């Protein structure tokens, strides 16, 4: 009696105990990581501003001496600190986060976050032509990794938590929650699922709330009102897309050519490379283009509002490419997002201004062209076409711009891809000896389906209510060794041996269903299903019917494991692809 009572009490206790699984913890952590990531990014931005104020003073145009000395000295210090204490903080941070996801089971040392914070804030605040978004992405990922490790999450969750932190960092840095989610899913994770999407959205929103709490909701640069875009002006934006594509190729080639050469130099030179890069950037700044130093958001704002002539905008775009190539390839920690936006804005304004000088009937403002230009470079250089469209919409808050953005971004993406098939992040990872999965290649890879492997129906198909004799008659004109039958509960295969055995047992007038094997029904496939689904199904049956989606009794073909293997062999013979 007491045992029964105890058991009953125990059952009641376990029924009412809250089931807080790792899934729930994961979602809660997404919010927590978003908040902490947001705090870290706010601290990062304050560090950059503080460094800039300390080293350059408050003046918009610092003295020539400061322009030359500050980035040089900062480069010297950063170069030494990176090489001696934080060697893993080189680069933008995007590939490092991908490495954590695909190679190191989500592991990013906290030391990396600290090193990135210190060195990137010094470099950007000290005038190097780099951006804070990519480091913020890595800092957020590192914080998430630490949190996940301390809470001893499962390996699968630990692998996923780094990109969630990355989303938080990017969202807070960019003040663009949607773009951050899209970028991480498009470029880091590479796949959509409810769990990933939900967690990244929670982290992104939390991070942006925190960032806006501290820094206000003002955008990084003001967007001028976008005027109605006349359809006949879309051609002008298409030209921008083409020009942007070539500019992105120049930018990418510059990095891809110079970076390995600098890395191959003796180690002692790597202490000096950031300093030399800083000096060269300082010379550019002192020569009349201080706008290219640092992240460049103020200059983007000025370009958006027509403060520069289109000729000067073109010069700034070219100089920013040069300055960013120097900074990035020298190993100075920092990102490429802000420079990409800068180059795009300047190029857009230059192309728009030039077009208006040639064709006075064009009415789009320079600011509109600059805004579209940012998206163009984002699509062409970073190869994030979907993110680039949403990014422009998110920062402008104006849907009128959708048509020129789609036209220009798509053109830029396609042209840059045809000229430079390997995206910049994949290029950098391969230069570092890492074979990270290419999200672009994954997107572009063909998806093989059941219809690619299936063969024509070569077995008789009967209703399971048909008699054994009918089935045997159908098999008389077929070389198949079985029949496929269908009934209310699905499909079955019945071998000729089973049918003949039934006839010999004088069960010829019974239905096929009565003598069907007890092994149960076999599933059917649809032609459009991925081949992976077919492989799972073929584990249960040697051959599976492929049926029409609109009529489940209409068999369009059949597929077996051998058919799938034959398909891969054919494809390999045709184009040498591996899947």
């Amino acid at each position, binding site marked *: 009696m007491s045992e029964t009572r105890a058991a009953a009490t125990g059952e009641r206790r376990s029924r009412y105990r809250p089931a807080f699984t790792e899934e729930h913890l994961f979602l809660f952590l997404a919010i927590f990581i978003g908040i902490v990531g947001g705090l870290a990014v706010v601290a990062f931005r304050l560090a950059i501003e503080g460094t800039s104020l300390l080293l350059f003073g408050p003046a918009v145009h610092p003295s020539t001496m400061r322009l030359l000395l500050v980035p040089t000295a900062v480069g010297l210090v950063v170069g030494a600190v990176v090489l001696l204490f934080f060697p893993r903080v080189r680069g933008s941070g995007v590939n490092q986060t991908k490495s954590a996801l695909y190679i190191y089971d989500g592991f990013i040392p906290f030391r990396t976050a600290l090193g990135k914070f210190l060195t990137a804030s010094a470099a950007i605040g000290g005038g190097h032509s780099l951006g804070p978004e990519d480091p913020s992405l890595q800092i957020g990922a590192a914080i998430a990794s630490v949190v996940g490790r301390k809470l001893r999450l499962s390996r699968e*969750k630990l692998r996923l938590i780094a990109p969630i932190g990355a989303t938080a960092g990017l969202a807070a840095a960019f003040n663009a929650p949607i773009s951050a989610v899209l970028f991480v899913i498009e470029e880091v994770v590479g796949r959509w699922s409810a769990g990933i999407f939900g967690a990244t959205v929670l982290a992104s929103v939390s991070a942006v709330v925190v960032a806006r709490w501290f820094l206000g909701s003002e955008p990084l640069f003001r967007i001028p009102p976008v005027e109605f875009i006349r359809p006949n002006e879309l051609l002008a934006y298409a030209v921008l897309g083409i020009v942007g594509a070539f500019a992105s190729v120049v930018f990418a080639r510059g990095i891809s050519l110079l970076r390995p050469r600098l890395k191959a130099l003796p180690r002692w030179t790597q202490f000096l490379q950031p300093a030399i890069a800083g000096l060269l950037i300082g010379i550019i700044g002192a020569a009349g283009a201080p706008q290219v130093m640092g992240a460049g958001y103020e200059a983007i704002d000025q370009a958006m509002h027509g403060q520069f002539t289109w000729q000067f905008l073109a010069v700034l775009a070219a100089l920013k490419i040069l300055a960013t190539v120097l900074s990035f390839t020298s190993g100075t920690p920092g990102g490429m997002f802000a420079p990409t936006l800068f180059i795009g804005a300047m190029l857009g304004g230059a192309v728009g201004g030039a077009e208006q000088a040639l064709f006075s009937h064009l009415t789009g403002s320079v600011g509109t062209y600059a805004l579209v230009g940012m998206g163009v470079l984002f699509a062409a250089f970073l190869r994030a076409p979907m993110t680039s469209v949403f990014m422009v919409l998110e920062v402008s808050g104006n849907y009128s711009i959708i048509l020129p953005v789609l036209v220009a971004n798509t053109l830029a993406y396609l042209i840059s891809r045809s000229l430079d098939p390997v995206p910049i992040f994949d290029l950098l990872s391969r230069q570092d000896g890492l074979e990270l999965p290419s999200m672009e290649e994954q997107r572009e890879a063909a998806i093989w389906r059941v219809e690619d492997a299936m063969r024509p129906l070569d077995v008789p198909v009967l209703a399971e209510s048909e008699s054994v004799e009918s089935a045997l008659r159908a098999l008389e004109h077929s070389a198949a060794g079985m029949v496929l039958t269908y009934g209310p509960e699905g499909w079955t295969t019945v071998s000729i041996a089973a049918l003949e055995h039934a006839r010999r047992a004088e069960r010829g007038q019974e239905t096929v269903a009565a003598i069907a094997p007890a092994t149960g029904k076999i599933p059917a496939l649809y032609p459009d299903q991925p081949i992976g689904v077919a492989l799972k199904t073929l584990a249960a049956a040697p051959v599976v019917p492929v049926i029409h989606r609109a009529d489940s009794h209409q068999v369009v073909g059949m597929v077996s494991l051998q058919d799938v293997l034959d398909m891969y062999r054919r494809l390999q013979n045709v184009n040498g692809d591996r899947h």
Partner: protein
Amino acid sequence: MENDPQPDATPFQTGTATAPRGYTLAAMLAIAVVLFVALHFLNQAFASRHRRIAHEEYAAGVRALEAGQAADAAERFLTALRFSPGNREYELNLAQALATAGRLRQAESYLHTLLEEEPGDGMANLQLARLALREHDLARATRHFHAAMYGAWPQEGQKRRLETRIELVRALLQEQQLTAARSELIGLTGDLPDEPGRLAEAGALFLAAGDNRNAFAMLRRAMEKQEAPPGDWLRDAGLAIFRMGNYPSAVEYLRRAVERGADGSSAEALAIARAAVALDPYARGVRHSDHVLRAYRAWGIAARRMEQCSVAPDSEPGKQWTELRPRVSRAALARDPELLDAVTEAVFRLEQATESCPSPTPEDSALALLAQRYAGQGR
């Protein structure tokens, strides 16, 4: 989510894993709170410093602008804006500094940015109007002046609107758009405060625009309110009434203007007015003998003018002169009213024909004005 193959992926409620995880989470939350608070104070310190820098730079910019160092002022305002982005007062001053420094395009860009945010901003529109004037685009300037007049002014709106309209009128007068100027002045009278200074200013503008009647009315109202009106007011009133053809009154105003030390043009105008009074053949109350005397005197003045300006004998005035000269004498004029009228007409015609000839005497100018006046009356 995919199944986790690791055996230690236990639910949160598992006894052995709960306590450490809970403590860890609590510790992390505590760290986050501490970080939040520390960042809050740091952010406040930054914001305070930024405000101080912005204020200092703005003040320095204002001093530089007042000292005529527009380029330096622009740099200061730019710096102030960097630390106080979106501050409209800073932006307006920056635009003004840029314009003063000759960087018109940049100034215009900043002002257009301000207008994008507040299309009805009075000061931004006024600044754009001034920039347009510098680029000699009167149509655009007028649009912006109007936008400024009907726009929003944070303080002293009525006064600012009035001053803006006055500035528009001055711009129109400078561009010789007298009809448009008069139209604006009519609109101005509705908003004009009843202050002597403002009335006199309006009167002067009416005078410059050629609306003598309204000019005189404004000036007279102004002088009624001012015990000792300045010489300039008297001069303008005298000129207005002079142009209206009331030369005796004009003499009186102009004489007082000269006594009050008005500028040199008053003396010249006074001499002309006096000459007009002395020479007007058709003035009210002039007897026949005075008419003859005036006509004969005018004939002499015109003759000297004809010589001075070398009027061609075969020109219309020249022919008329040649025909009349043998017949003109004081006695003949007294006897022959037709000759008197013909001589008067010839004098007027000659003085009008030689108006562009340099160095006219006050008498010549007076005769030309009388000719103009009486030509309109068909005499």
